Protein backbone atom coordinates (compact mmCIF):
# COMPACT_ATOMS: atom_id res chain seq x y z
CA UNK A 1 0.00 0.00 0.00
CA UNK A 2 2.77 2.40 0.97
CA UNK A 3 4.69 1.44 -2.10
CA UNK A 4 1.62 2.16 -4.17
CA UNK A 5 1.22 5.60 -2.58
CA UNK A 6 4.90 6.34 -3.15
CA UNK A 7 4.48 5.47 -6.83
CA UNK A 8 1.45 7.74 -7.03
CA UNK A 9 3.49 10.62 -5.58
CA UNK A 10 6.28 10.02 -8.07
CA UNK A 11 3.81 9.64 -10.90
CA UNK A 12 2.16 12.96 -10.14
CA UNK A 13 5.56 14.68 -10.10
CA UNK A 14 6.61 13.20 -13.44
CA UNK A 15 3.14 13.78 -14.87
CA UNK A 16 3.27 17.48 -13.99
CA UNK A 17 6.31 17.90 -16.21
CA UNK A 18 4.72 16.03 -19.11
CA UNK A 19 1.53 18.01 -18.67
CA UNK A 20 3.36 21.36 -18.79
CA UNK A 21 5.16 20.41 -22.00
CA UNK A 22 2.04 18.82 -23.51
CA UNK A 23 0.12 22.08 -23.06
CA UNK A 24 2.50 23.85 -25.43
CA UNK A 25 2.15 21.10 -28.04
CA UNK A 26 -1.59 21.03 -27.79
CA UNK A 27 -2.07 24.80 -28.02
CA UNK A 28 0.19 25.16 -31.03
CA UNK A 29 -1.41 22.16 -32.72
CA UNK A 30 -4.85 23.49 -31.94
CA UNK A 31 -4.14 26.81 -33.58
CA UNK A 32 -1.94 26.07 -36.62
CA UNK A 33 -2.16 22.26 -36.89
CA UNK A 34 1.59 21.86 -36.56
CA UNK A 35 3.48 19.27 -34.51
CA UNK A 36 5.99 21.76 -33.17
CA UNK A 37 9.08 19.57 -32.89
CA UNK A 38 11.09 22.55 -31.65
CA UNK A 39 8.91 22.76 -28.56
CA UNK A 40 10.90 20.15 -26.64
CA UNK A 41 14.07 22.14 -27.30
CA UNK A 42 12.50 25.28 -25.93
CA UNK A 43 12.03 23.22 -22.78
CA UNK A 44 15.73 22.27 -22.87
CA UNK A 45 16.71 25.94 -23.28
CA UNK A 46 14.50 26.77 -20.30
CA UNK A 47 16.40 24.23 -18.22
CA UNK A 48 19.72 25.79 -19.24
CA UNK A 49 18.57 29.36 -18.55
CA UNK A 50 17.43 28.25 -15.11
CA UNK A 51 20.75 26.50 -14.56
CA UNK A 52 22.80 29.59 -15.42
CA UNK A 53 20.58 31.82 -13.30
CA UNK A 54 20.89 29.56 -10.29
CA UNK A 55 24.53 28.55 -10.48
CA UNK A 56 26.24 31.64 -11.94
CA UNK A 57 24.02 34.50 -10.80
CA UNK A 58 23.01 32.75 -7.57
CA UNK A 59 19.37 33.67 -8.00
CA UNK A 60 16.66 31.90 -6.08
CA UNK A 61 14.24 29.42 -7.56
CA UNK A 62 11.39 31.80 -8.31
CA UNK A 63 13.43 34.55 -10.06
CA UNK A 64 15.21 31.86 -12.11
CA UNK A 65 11.89 30.33 -13.05
CA UNK A 66 10.50 33.67 -14.16
CA UNK A 67 13.62 34.56 -16.17
CA UNK A 68 13.56 31.14 -17.88
CA UNK A 69 9.88 31.60 -18.73
CA UNK A 70 10.47 35.04 -20.23
CA UNK A 71 13.49 33.88 -22.26
CA UNK A 72 11.57 30.88 -23.58
CA UNK A 73 8.59 33.06 -24.38
CA UNK A 74 10.78 35.32 -26.52
CA UNK A 75 12.43 32.31 -28.13
CA UNK A 76 9.08 30.73 -28.98
CA UNK A 77 7.78 33.94 -30.55
CA UNK A 78 11.03 34.36 -32.52
CA UNK A 79 10.87 30.78 -33.83
CA UNK A 80 7.32 31.30 -35.01
CA UNK A 81 8.15 34.65 -36.69
CA UNK A 82 11.29 33.45 -38.47
CA UNK A 83 10.61 29.85 -39.32
CA UNK A 84 6.86 29.18 -39.36
CA UNK A 85 5.16 32.42 -40.40
CA UNK A 86 6.63 32.53 -43.94
CA UNK A 87 5.25 29.03 -44.46
CA UNK A 88 1.76 29.70 -43.16
CA UNK A 89 0.20 28.72 -46.51
CA UNK A 90 2.65 25.97 -47.46
CA UNK A 91 1.91 22.26 -47.18
CA UNK A 92 1.84 21.10 -43.57
CA UNK A 93 4.59 18.57 -44.07
CA UNK A 94 6.94 21.36 -45.21
CA UNK A 95 6.37 23.26 -41.97
CA UNK A 96 6.94 20.00 -40.10
CA UNK A 97 10.36 19.58 -41.73
CA UNK A 98 11.17 23.20 -40.88
CA UNK A 99 10.19 22.47 -37.28
CA UNK A 100 12.59 19.52 -37.30
CA UNK A 101 15.27 21.83 -38.69
CA UNK A 102 14.66 24.36 -35.91
CA UNK A 103 14.77 21.55 -33.36
CA UNK A 104 18.15 20.27 -34.62
CA UNK A 105 19.44 23.84 -34.78
CA UNK A 106 18.53 24.53 -31.14
CA UNK A 107 19.91 21.19 -29.94
CA UNK A 108 23.25 21.38 -31.69
CA UNK A 109 23.53 25.17 -31.32
CA UNK A 110 23.20 24.71 -27.56
CA UNK A 111 25.68 21.86 -27.70
CA UNK A 112 28.15 24.15 -29.48
CA UNK A 113 27.90 26.85 -26.82
CA UNK A 114 27.61 24.86 -23.60
CA UNK A 115 29.28 21.58 -24.74
CA UNK A 116 27.58 18.21 -24.75
CA UNK A 117 28.36 17.20 -21.18
CA UNK A 118 25.64 16.67 -18.61
CA UNK A 119 25.45 19.43 -16.01
CA UNK A 120 24.06 19.20 -12.53
CA UNK A 121 21.72 21.75 -11.03
CA UNK A 122 22.95 23.37 -7.82
CA UNK A 123 21.45 21.53 -4.82
CA UNK A 124 18.50 23.25 -3.23
CA UNK A 125 19.03 24.64 0.26
CA UNK A 126 16.92 25.83 3.17
CA UNK A 127 13.22 25.09 3.17
CA UNK A 128 13.35 23.79 -0.39
CA UNK A 129 15.51 20.84 0.65
CA UNK A 130 13.10 19.50 3.23
CA UNK A 131 11.71 16.01 3.07
CA UNK A 132 8.44 14.89 4.59
CA UNK A 133 7.66 11.38 5.67
CA UNK A 134 4.10 10.20 6.05
CA UNK A 135 4.47 6.64 7.28
CA UNK A 136 6.95 5.23 4.81
CA UNK A 137 5.92 7.50 1.98
CA UNK A 138 8.60 10.08 1.22
CA UNK A 139 7.52 13.40 -0.24
CA UNK A 140 10.25 15.92 -0.92
CA UNK A 141 9.70 19.66 -0.92
CA UNK A 142 10.87 19.65 -4.54
CA UNK A 143 7.92 17.48 -5.48
CA UNK A 144 5.50 19.75 -3.65
CA UNK A 145 6.99 22.83 -5.32
CA UNK A 146 6.94 21.10 -8.70
CA UNK A 147 3.30 20.10 -8.46
CA UNK A 148 2.33 23.40 -6.81
CA UNK A 149 3.89 25.54 -9.54
CA UNK A 150 2.38 23.33 -12.22
CA UNK A 151 -1.10 23.68 -10.74
CA UNK A 152 -0.72 27.47 -10.41
CA UNK A 153 0.43 27.75 -14.04
CA UNK A 154 -2.43 25.58 -15.27
CA UNK A 155 -5.01 27.60 -13.40
CA UNK A 156 -3.45 30.76 -14.81
CA UNK A 157 -3.55 29.30 -18.30
CA UNK A 158 -7.18 28.28 -17.96
CA UNK A 159 -7.97 31.79 -16.77
CA UNK A 160 -6.18 33.38 -19.74
CA UNK A 161 -7.80 31.08 -22.27
CA UNK A 162 -11.32 31.15 -20.84
CA UNK A 163 -11.71 34.62 -19.35
CA UNK A 164 -9.60 37.12 -21.27
CA UNK A 165 -10.14 38.71 -24.66
CA UNK A 166 -6.88 37.30 -26.05
CA UNK A 167 -7.94 33.87 -24.87
CA UNK A 168 -11.21 34.23 -26.68
CA UNK A 169 -9.28 35.24 -29.81
CA UNK A 170 -7.12 32.14 -29.44
CA UNK A 171 -10.15 29.89 -29.27
CA UNK A 172 -11.73 31.66 -32.23
CA UNK A 173 -8.61 31.29 -34.41
CA UNK A 174 -8.31 27.61 -33.53
CA UNK A 175 -11.88 26.97 -34.63
CA UNK A 176 -11.83 28.91 -37.90
CA UNK A 177 -8.93 31.09 -38.87
CA UNK A 178 -10.65 32.85 -41.79
CA UNK A 179 -13.84 33.59 -39.90
CA UNK A 180 -11.81 34.91 -36.96
CA UNK A 181 -9.94 37.23 -39.29
CA UNK A 182 -13.23 38.51 -40.73
CA UNK A 183 -14.37 39.30 -37.19
CA UNK A 184 -11.41 41.62 -36.82
CA UNK A 185 -9.10 39.33 -34.87
CA UNK A 186 -5.43 39.82 -35.63
CA UNK A 187 -4.50 36.24 -36.46
CA UNK A 188 -0.72 36.79 -36.50
CA UNK A 189 -0.69 38.34 -33.04
CA UNK A 190 -2.93 35.62 -31.68
CA UNK A 191 -0.67 32.88 -33.03
CA UNK A 192 2.39 34.66 -31.59
CA UNK A 193 0.62 34.86 -28.25
CA UNK A 194 -0.13 31.13 -28.35
CA UNK A 195 3.52 30.35 -28.99
CA UNK A 196 4.50 32.72 -26.15
CA UNK A 197 2.19 30.98 -23.68
CA UNK A 198 3.21 27.47 -24.70
CA UNK A 199 6.92 28.28 -24.66
CA UNK A 200 6.71 29.95 -21.26
CA UNK A 201 5.15 26.77 -19.86
CA UNK A 202 7.88 24.69 -21.49
CA UNK A 203 10.51 26.97 -19.93
CA UNK A 204 8.94 26.47 -16.52
CA UNK A 205 8.91 22.70 -17.09
CA UNK A 206 12.62 22.88 -17.96
CA UNK A 207 13.57 24.57 -14.69
CA UNK A 208 11.32 22.27 -12.68
CA UNK A 209 12.81 19.18 -14.27
CA UNK A 210 16.24 20.61 -13.47
CA UNK A 211 15.51 20.88 -9.77
CA UNK A 212 13.71 17.52 -9.71
CA UNK A 213 16.17 15.34 -11.63
CA UNK A 214 19.26 17.54 -11.16
CA UNK A 215 20.93 16.74 -14.47
CA UNK A 216 20.47 18.47 -17.81
CA UNK A 217 22.06 18.08 -21.24
CA UNK A 218 21.44 19.54 -24.72
CA UNK A 219 19.54 16.48 -25.96
CA UNK A 220 17.37 16.13 -22.85
CA UNK A 221 14.28 17.36 -24.72
CA UNK A 222 13.91 14.59 -27.26
CA UNK A 223 12.34 11.78 -25.24
CA UNK A 224 10.14 13.89 -22.93
CA UNK A 225 9.13 15.82 -26.04
CA UNK A 226 7.74 12.73 -27.76
CA UNK A 227 6.12 11.54 -24.53
CA UNK A 228 4.50 14.92 -23.95
CA UNK A 229 3.21 14.94 -27.48
CA UNK A 230 1.74 11.51 -26.91
CA UNK A 231 0.14 12.89 -23.76
CA UNK A 232 -1.42 15.65 -25.85
CA UNK A 233 -2.72 13.15 -28.43
CA UNK A 234 -3.99 10.90 -25.66
CA UNK A 235 -6.12 13.63 -24.12
CA UNK A 236 -7.32 14.90 -27.48
CA UNK A 237 -5.00 17.21 -29.31
CA UNK A 238 -5.94 20.87 -29.29
CA UNK A 239 -7.87 20.47 -26.04
CA UNK A 240 -6.17 22.07 -23.04
CA UNK A 241 -7.68 19.95 -20.21
CA UNK A 242 -6.95 16.91 -22.37
CA UNK A 243 -3.24 17.69 -22.34
CA UNK A 244 -3.27 17.95 -18.54
CA UNK A 245 -5.06 14.64 -18.12
CA UNK A 246 -2.83 13.02 -20.73
CA UNK A 247 0.33 14.32 -19.05
CA UNK A 248 -0.62 12.93 -15.63
CA UNK A 249 -1.80 9.66 -17.15
CA UNK A 250 1.44 9.08 -19.07
CA UNK A 251 3.48 10.00 -15.98
CA UNK A 252 1.54 7.49 -13.88
CA UNK A 253 1.82 4.71 -16.46
CA UNK A 254 5.57 5.20 -16.72
CA UNK A 255 6.13 5.18 -12.99
CA UNK A 256 3.93 2.14 -12.46
CA UNK A 257 5.47 0.13 -15.29
CA UNK A 258 8.97 0.82 -13.98
CA UNK A 259 7.90 0.22 -10.38
CA UNK A 260 6.00 -3.03 -10.85
CA UNK A 261 7.19 -4.36 -14.19
CA UNK A 262 10.25 -4.05 -16.34
CA UNK A 263 11.50 -0.49 -16.65
CA UNK A 264 12.92 -1.35 -20.08
CA UNK A 265 9.38 -1.74 -21.35
CA UNK A 266 7.99 1.49 -19.95
CA UNK A 267 8.32 3.38 -23.25
CA UNK A 268 6.83 0.49 -25.21
CA UNK A 269 3.79 0.39 -22.90
CA UNK A 270 3.26 4.12 -23.36
CA UNK A 271 3.37 3.76 -27.15
CA UNK A 272 1.12 0.70 -27.11
CA UNK A 273 -1.49 2.60 -25.09
CA UNK A 274 -1.21 5.44 -27.56
CA UNK A 275 -1.81 3.17 -30.56
CA UNK A 276 -4.78 1.53 -28.83
CA UNK A 277 -6.31 4.91 -28.02
CA UNK A 278 -5.78 6.10 -31.58
CA UNK A 279 -7.43 3.01 -33.03
CA UNK A 280 -10.37 3.00 -30.62
CA UNK A 281 -10.90 6.76 -30.37
CA UNK A 282 -8.73 8.66 -32.85
CA UNK A 283 -9.74 12.08 -31.59
CA UNK A 284 -8.33 11.33 -28.12
CA UNK A 285 -9.95 10.93 -24.75
CA UNK A 286 -11.76 14.27 -24.68
CA UNK A 287 -11.88 14.84 -28.42
CA UNK A 288 -15.06 14.87 -30.43
CA UNK A 289 -15.28 12.85 -33.60
CA UNK A 290 -15.89 15.33 -36.37
CA UNK A 291 -17.64 13.80 -39.30
CA UNK A 292 -15.98 14.65 -42.58
CA UNK A 293 -18.15 16.51 -45.05
CA UNK A 294 -17.56 16.43 -48.75
Amino acid at each position, binding site marked *: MERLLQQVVNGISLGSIYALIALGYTMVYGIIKLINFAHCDVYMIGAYVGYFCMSYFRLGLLPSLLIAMVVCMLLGVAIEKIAYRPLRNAARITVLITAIGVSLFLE*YGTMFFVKAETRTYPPLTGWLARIFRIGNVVISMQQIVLVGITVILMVLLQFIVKKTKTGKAMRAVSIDQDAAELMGINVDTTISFTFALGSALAGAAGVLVGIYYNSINPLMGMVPGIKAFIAAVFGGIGIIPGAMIGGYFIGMVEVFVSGYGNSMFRDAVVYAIL*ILILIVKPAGLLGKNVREKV
Partner: protein
Amino acid sequence: MGRLNEHPAIKKAIALVLSYVIVQMLISTNIISDYLQVTLATICINIILAVSLNLITGITGQFSLGHAGFMSIGAYMCALIVLRMPTIPGFLLGVFAGAAAAALVGCVVGLPTLRLRGDYLAIATLGMAEIIRVIFLNLEITNGAAGLSGIPKFVNWFWLFVFTAGTILVISNFIRSSHGRACISVREDEIAADAMGINTTKYKVMAFTFGAFCAGIAGALYATSFYFIEPGLFGFMKSIDVLVIVVLGGLGSISGSVLAAVLLAVISTLLQSFPEIRMVLYALLLIIIMLFRPQGLMGSKEISLNVFGKLGDLFASRKRRV
Protein backbone atom coordinates in the same frame (compact mmCIF):
# COMPACT_ATOMS: atom_id res chain seq x y z
CA MET B 1 18.95 1.35 -85.41
CA GLY B 2 17.93 4.94 -84.84
CA ARG B 3 14.43 3.79 -83.93
CA LEU B 4 15.79 1.30 -81.45
CA ASN B 5 17.79 4.00 -79.66
CA GLU B 6 14.66 5.96 -79.00
CA HIS B 7 12.84 3.15 -77.27
CA PRO B 8 12.55 4.28 -73.61
CA ALA B 9 13.35 0.88 -72.10
CA ILE B 10 16.56 0.62 -74.09
CA LYS B 11 17.53 4.18 -73.19
CA LYS B 12 16.96 3.33 -69.54
CA ALA B 13 18.99 0.15 -69.79
CA ILE B 14 21.86 2.03 -71.43
CA ALA B 15 21.77 4.73 -68.72
CA LEU B 16 21.74 2.11 -65.96
CA VAL B 17 24.60 0.07 -67.40
CA LEU B 18 26.61 3.24 -68.00
CA SER B 19 26.17 4.47 -64.43
CA TYR B 20 27.14 1.03 -63.09
CA VAL B 21 30.23 0.78 -65.28
CA ILE B 22 31.39 4.34 -64.58
CA VAL B 23 31.20 3.97 -60.80
CA GLN B 24 32.79 0.51 -61.00
CA MET B 25 35.67 1.98 -63.00
CA LEU B 26 36.08 4.80 -60.49
CA ILE B 27 36.25 2.21 -57.71
CA SER B 28 38.78 0.01 -59.47
CA THR B 29 40.98 3.00 -60.31
CA ASN B 30 40.73 4.01 -56.64
CA ILE B 31 39.30 7.47 -57.37
CA ILE B 32 36.45 6.42 -55.08
CA SER B 33 38.49 5.55 -52.01
CA ASP B 34 37.44 3.18 -49.23
CA TYR B 35 36.12 6.13 -47.27
CA LEU B 36 34.00 7.31 -50.18
CA GLN B 37 32.72 3.77 -50.67
CA VAL B 38 31.18 3.98 -47.21
CA THR B 39 29.46 7.20 -48.31
CA LEU B 40 28.35 5.43 -51.48
CA ALA B 41 26.75 2.65 -49.42
CA THR B 42 25.02 5.24 -47.23
CA ILE B 43 23.72 7.05 -50.28
CA CYS B 44 22.32 3.88 -51.86
CA ILE B 45 20.67 2.74 -48.63
CA ASN B 46 19.18 6.20 -48.15
CA ILE B 47 17.92 6.19 -51.73
CA ILE B 48 16.10 2.88 -51.15
CA LEU B 49 14.62 4.19 -47.89
CA ALA B 50 13.62 7.53 -49.36
CA VAL B 51 12.09 6.12 -52.54
CA SER B 52 10.05 3.60 -50.56
CA LEU B 53 8.90 6.23 -48.05
CA ASN B 54 8.03 8.44 -50.99
CA LEU B 55 5.72 5.69 -52.21
CA ILE B 56 3.91 5.78 -48.86
CA THR B 57 4.01 9.51 -48.11
CA GLY B 58 4.49 11.22 -51.45
CA ILE B 59 2.45 9.02 -53.77
CA THR B 60 -0.22 7.55 -51.50
CA GLY B 61 -0.29 10.54 -49.16
CA GLN B 62 -0.02 8.53 -45.92
CA PHE B 63 2.22 10.31 -43.45
CA SER B 64 4.53 7.72 -41.85
CA LEU B 65 7.13 8.44 -39.17
CA GLY B 66 8.06 4.80 -38.59
CA HIS B 67 10.24 3.86 -41.53
CA ALA B 68 13.25 3.13 -39.32
CA GLY B 69 11.20 0.43 -37.60
CA PHE B 70 10.82 -1.55 -40.84
CA MET B 71 14.46 -0.94 -41.62
CA SER B 72 15.47 -2.42 -38.27
CA ILE B 73 13.40 -5.55 -38.88
CA GLY B 74 15.19 -6.11 -42.20
CA ALA B 75 18.56 -5.41 -40.62
CA TYR B 76 18.12 -7.80 -37.68
CA MET B 77 16.57 -10.56 -39.76
CA CYS B 78 19.34 -10.42 -42.32
CA ALA B 79 22.08 -10.15 -39.68
CA LEU B 80 20.76 -13.17 -37.79
CA ILE B 81 20.63 -15.27 -40.95
CA VAL B 82 24.00 -14.13 -42.28
CA LEU B 83 25.71 -14.76 -38.94
CA ARG B 84 24.67 -18.42 -39.27
CA MET B 85 25.11 -18.75 -43.05
CA PRO B 86 28.01 -16.52 -44.07
CA THR B 87 27.72 -17.27 -47.79
CA ILE B 88 26.31 -15.41 -50.78
CA PRO B 89 23.12 -17.54 -50.88
CA GLY B 90 22.82 -16.86 -47.13
CA PHE B 91 23.16 -13.15 -47.80
CA LEU B 92 20.46 -13.19 -50.49
CA LEU B 93 18.22 -15.31 -48.27
CA GLY B 94 18.82 -12.82 -45.45
CA VAL B 95 17.93 -9.82 -47.61
CA PHE B 96 14.70 -11.37 -48.84
CA ALA B 97 13.74 -12.82 -45.45
CA GLY B 98 14.38 -9.41 -43.88
CA ALA B 99 12.31 -7.66 -46.50
CA ALA B 100 9.51 -10.23 -46.20
CA ALA B 101 9.46 -9.92 -42.41
CA ALA B 102 9.31 -6.13 -42.66
CA ALA B 103 6.51 -6.38 -45.22
CA LEU B 104 4.58 -8.77 -42.98
CA VAL B 105 4.86 -6.41 -40.02
CA GLY B 106 3.97 -3.51 -42.31
CA CYS B 107 0.82 -5.28 -43.42
CA VAL B 108 -0.20 -6.31 -39.89
CA VAL B 109 0.45 -2.81 -38.52
CA GLY B 110 -1.00 -1.08 -41.55
CA LEU B 111 -4.39 -2.77 -41.51
CA PRO B 112 -5.61 -1.18 -38.27
CA THR B 113 -3.58 2.05 -38.29
CA LEU B 114 -4.20 3.13 -41.86
CA ARG B 115 -7.74 4.00 -40.88
CA LEU B 116 -6.20 7.00 -39.15
CA ARG B 117 -5.52 10.16 -41.08
CA GLY B 118 -2.73 12.67 -41.34
CA ASP B 119 -0.90 13.44 -38.15
CA TYR B 120 -2.64 10.70 -36.19
CA LEU B 121 -1.25 8.10 -38.56
CA ALA B 122 2.17 9.72 -38.20
CA ILE B 123 2.04 9.39 -34.42
CA ALA B 124 0.77 5.80 -34.58
CA THR B 125 3.60 4.78 -36.95
CA LEU B 126 6.10 6.56 -34.73
CA GLY B 127 4.79 4.60 -31.76
CA MET B 128 5.00 1.38 -33.77
CA ALA B 129 8.64 2.00 -34.68
CA GLU B 130 9.49 2.75 -31.05
CA ILE B 131 7.78 -0.46 -29.90
CA ILE B 132 9.81 -2.45 -32.44
CA ARG B 133 12.96 -0.78 -31.14
CA VAL B 134 12.13 -1.58 -27.51
CA ILE B 135 11.43 -5.21 -28.46
CA PHE B 136 14.83 -5.54 -30.14
CA LEU B 137 16.34 -3.90 -27.08
CA ASN B 138 14.93 -6.61 -24.82
CA LEU B 139 15.19 -9.80 -26.89
CA GLU B 140 17.85 -12.42 -26.12
CA ILE B 141 18.51 -13.30 -29.74
CA THR B 142 19.23 -9.69 -30.76
CA ASN B 143 21.67 -9.23 -27.88
CA GLY B 144 19.80 -6.25 -26.40
CA ALA B 145 21.38 -2.82 -26.25
CA ALA B 146 24.82 -4.16 -27.15
CA GLY B 147 23.56 -5.08 -30.60
CA LEU B 148 24.91 -7.61 -33.06
CA SER B 149 28.50 -7.23 -34.17
CA GLY B 150 30.84 -9.07 -36.50
CA ILE B 151 28.25 -9.34 -39.24
CA PRO B 152 30.12 -10.48 -42.36
CA LYS B 153 30.31 -7.83 -45.05
CA PHE B 154 28.77 -8.87 -48.36
CA VAL B 155 27.69 -5.59 -49.82
CA ASN B 156 29.78 -4.18 -52.60
CA TRP B 157 28.96 -1.80 -55.42
CA PHE B 158 27.42 -4.64 -57.46
CA TRP B 159 24.83 -5.55 -54.81
CA LEU B 160 24.21 -1.92 -53.90
CA PHE B 161 23.54 -1.17 -57.55
CA VAL B 162 21.31 -4.20 -58.08
CA PHE B 163 19.09 -3.43 -55.11
CA THR B 164 19.01 0.35 -55.48
CA ALA B 165 18.30 0.33 -59.21
CA GLY B 166 15.86 -2.53 -58.71
CA THR B 167 13.90 -0.61 -56.07
CA ILE B 168 13.79 2.56 -58.15
CA LEU B 169 12.69 0.69 -61.28
CA VAL B 170 10.02 -1.36 -59.55
CA ILE B 171 8.60 1.61 -57.66
CA SER B 172 8.60 3.96 -60.62
CA ASN B 173 6.90 1.30 -62.74
CA PHE B 174 4.41 0.69 -59.94
CA ILE B 175 3.52 4.38 -59.90
CA ARG B 176 2.77 4.30 -63.61
CA SER B 177 0.63 1.17 -63.33
CA SER B 178 -3.09 1.25 -62.64
CA HIS B 179 -2.37 0.39 -58.99
CA GLY B 180 -0.08 3.40 -58.81
CA ARG B 181 -2.74 5.65 -60.31
CA ALA B 182 -5.15 4.36 -57.68
CA CYS B 183 -2.61 5.26 -54.96
CA ILE B 184 -2.27 8.77 -56.38
CA SER B 185 -6.04 9.16 -56.37
CA VAL B 186 -6.09 8.22 -52.68
CA ARG B 187 -3.55 11.00 -52.05
CA GLU B 188 -5.49 13.58 -54.04
CA ASP B 189 -8.89 12.94 -52.49
CA GLU B 190 -9.70 9.85 -50.51
CA ILE B 191 -13.45 10.36 -50.53
CA ALA B 192 -13.59 10.98 -54.26
CA ALA B 193 -11.41 7.93 -54.88
CA ASP B 194 -13.72 5.86 -52.71
CA ALA B 195 -16.71 7.15 -54.64
CA MET B 196 -15.08 6.14 -57.91
CA GLY B 197 -14.97 2.56 -56.69
CA ILE B 198 -11.34 2.41 -55.61
CA ASN B 199 -10.77 0.21 -52.58
CA THR B 200 -8.79 2.87 -50.68
CA THR B 201 -7.88 0.64 -47.73
CA LYS B 202 -6.47 -1.99 -50.07
CA TYR B 203 -4.24 0.49 -51.88
CA LYS B 204 -3.10 2.18 -48.70
CA VAL B 205 -2.12 -1.16 -47.17
CA MET B 206 -0.52 -2.21 -50.47
CA ALA B 207 1.66 0.91 -50.60
CA PHE B 208 2.51 0.59 -46.92
CA THR B 209 3.48 -3.08 -47.22
CA PHE B 210 5.50 -2.47 -50.36
CA GLY B 211 7.27 0.49 -48.72
CA ALA B 212 8.04 -1.67 -45.67
CA PHE B 213 9.42 -4.42 -47.95
CA CYS B 214 11.88 -1.98 -49.53
CA ALA B 215 12.81 -0.53 -46.14
CA GLY B 216 13.56 -4.11 -45.06
CA ILE B 217 15.93 -4.48 -48.03
CA ALA B 218 17.63 -1.22 -47.05
CA GLY B 219 18.02 -2.46 -43.48
CA ALA B 220 19.49 -5.76 -44.66
CA LEU B 221 22.00 -3.90 -46.83
CA TYR B 222 22.87 -1.69 -43.89
CA ALA B 223 23.57 -4.68 -41.65
CA THR B 224 25.77 -6.39 -44.23
CA SER B 225 27.79 -3.31 -45.10
CA PHE B 226 28.60 -1.82 -41.68
CA TYR B 227 29.45 -4.96 -39.60
CA PHE B 228 27.43 -3.80 -36.61
CA ILE B 229 23.82 -3.00 -35.70
CA GLU B 230 22.17 -1.93 -32.46
CA PRO B 231 18.62 -0.80 -31.67
CA GLY B 232 19.73 2.81 -31.11
CA LEU B 233 20.61 3.15 -34.80
CA PHE B 234 16.98 2.78 -35.80
CA GLY B 235 15.44 5.36 -33.52
CA PHE B 236 13.09 8.21 -34.21
CA MET B 237 15.86 10.33 -35.73
CA LYS B 238 16.49 7.76 -38.46
CA SER B 239 12.85 7.96 -39.56
CA ILE B 240 13.14 11.73 -39.52
CA ASP B 241 16.31 11.60 -41.64
CA VAL B 242 14.46 9.63 -44.30
CA LEU B 243 11.46 11.95 -44.19
CA VAL B 244 13.78 14.93 -44.59
CA ILE B 245 15.21 13.40 -47.77
CA VAL B 246 11.75 12.75 -49.18
CA VAL B 247 10.40 16.23 -48.47
CA LEU B 248 13.60 17.92 -49.55
CA GLY B 249 13.51 16.10 -52.88
CA GLY B 250 9.85 16.83 -53.36
CA LEU B 251 6.88 14.71 -52.29
CA GLY B 252 5.92 12.36 -55.06
CA SER B 253 9.10 12.81 -57.07
CA ILE B 254 11.21 9.65 -57.24
CA SER B 255 14.11 11.39 -58.95
CA GLY B 256 13.80 14.15 -56.35
CA SER B 257 14.33 11.60 -53.57
CA VAL B 258 17.41 10.23 -55.35
CA LEU B 259 18.77 13.73 -55.88
CA ALA B 260 18.13 14.77 -52.27
CA ALA B 261 19.74 11.60 -50.89
CA VAL B 262 22.89 12.31 -52.90
CA LEU B 263 22.83 16.02 -52.06
CA LEU B 264 22.46 15.48 -48.32
CA ALA B 265 25.25 12.90 -48.32
CA VAL B 266 27.51 15.35 -50.18
CA ILE B 267 26.61 18.17 -47.77
CA SER B 268 27.27 16.04 -44.73
CA THR B 269 30.57 14.78 -46.20
CA LEU B 270 31.67 18.35 -46.92
CA LEU B 271 30.70 19.39 -43.41
CA GLN B 272 32.86 16.61 -41.91
CA SER B 273 35.72 19.10 -41.71
CA PHE B 274 33.81 21.25 -39.22
CA PRO B 275 32.71 18.59 -36.75
CA GLU B 276 31.60 21.08 -34.11
CA ILE B 277 29.13 23.06 -36.14
CA ARG B 278 28.28 20.31 -38.64
CA MET B 279 24.79 19.67 -37.30
CA VAL B 280 24.12 23.37 -36.77
CA LEU B 281 24.92 24.14 -40.41
CA TYR B 282 22.92 21.09 -41.54
CA ALA B 283 19.90 22.33 -39.58
CA LEU B 284 20.29 25.86 -40.94
CA LEU B 285 20.51 24.58 -44.52
CA LEU B 286 17.40 22.50 -43.96
CA ILE B 287 15.44 25.51 -42.66
CA ILE B 288 16.67 27.77 -45.47
CA ILE B 289 15.88 25.27 -48.23
CA MET B 290 12.40 24.74 -46.81
CA LEU B 291 11.77 28.50 -46.46
CA PHE B 292 12.81 29.28 -50.01
CA ARG B 293 11.67 26.10 -51.73
CA PRO B 294 8.73 24.74 -49.72
CA GLN B 295 7.72 22.28 -52.44
CA GLY B 296 11.11 20.54 -52.28
CA LEU B 297 13.89 20.57 -54.84
CA MET B 298 11.94 18.86 -57.63
CA GLY B 299 8.37 19.64 -56.62
CA SER B 300 6.39 16.68 -57.92
CA LYS B 301 8.23 16.63 -61.25
CA GLU B 302 10.61 13.94 -62.44
CA ILE B 303 13.91 14.15 -64.22
CA SER B 304 13.64 11.97 -67.27
CA LEU B 305 16.28 10.98 -69.74
CA ASN B 306 14.63 13.38 -72.19
CA VAL B 307 16.15 16.23 -70.20
CA PHE B 308 19.45 15.64 -71.96
CA GLY B 309 17.73 15.63 -75.33
CA LYS B 310 15.92 18.86 -74.50
CA LEU B 311 19.11 20.48 -73.24
CA GLY B 312 20.74 19.47 -76.52
CA ASP B 313 17.89 21.06 -78.49
CA LEU B 314 18.12 24.23 -76.43
CA PHE B 315 21.83 24.39 -77.03
CA ALA B 316 21.38 23.82 -80.75
CA SER B 317 18.73 26.52 -81.09
CA ARG B 318 20.90 29.02 -79.24
CA LYS B 319 23.75 28.29 -81.57
CA ARG B 320 21.49 28.78 -84.57
CA ARG B 321 20.37 32.14 -83.25
CA VAL B 322 23.97 33.24 -82.86
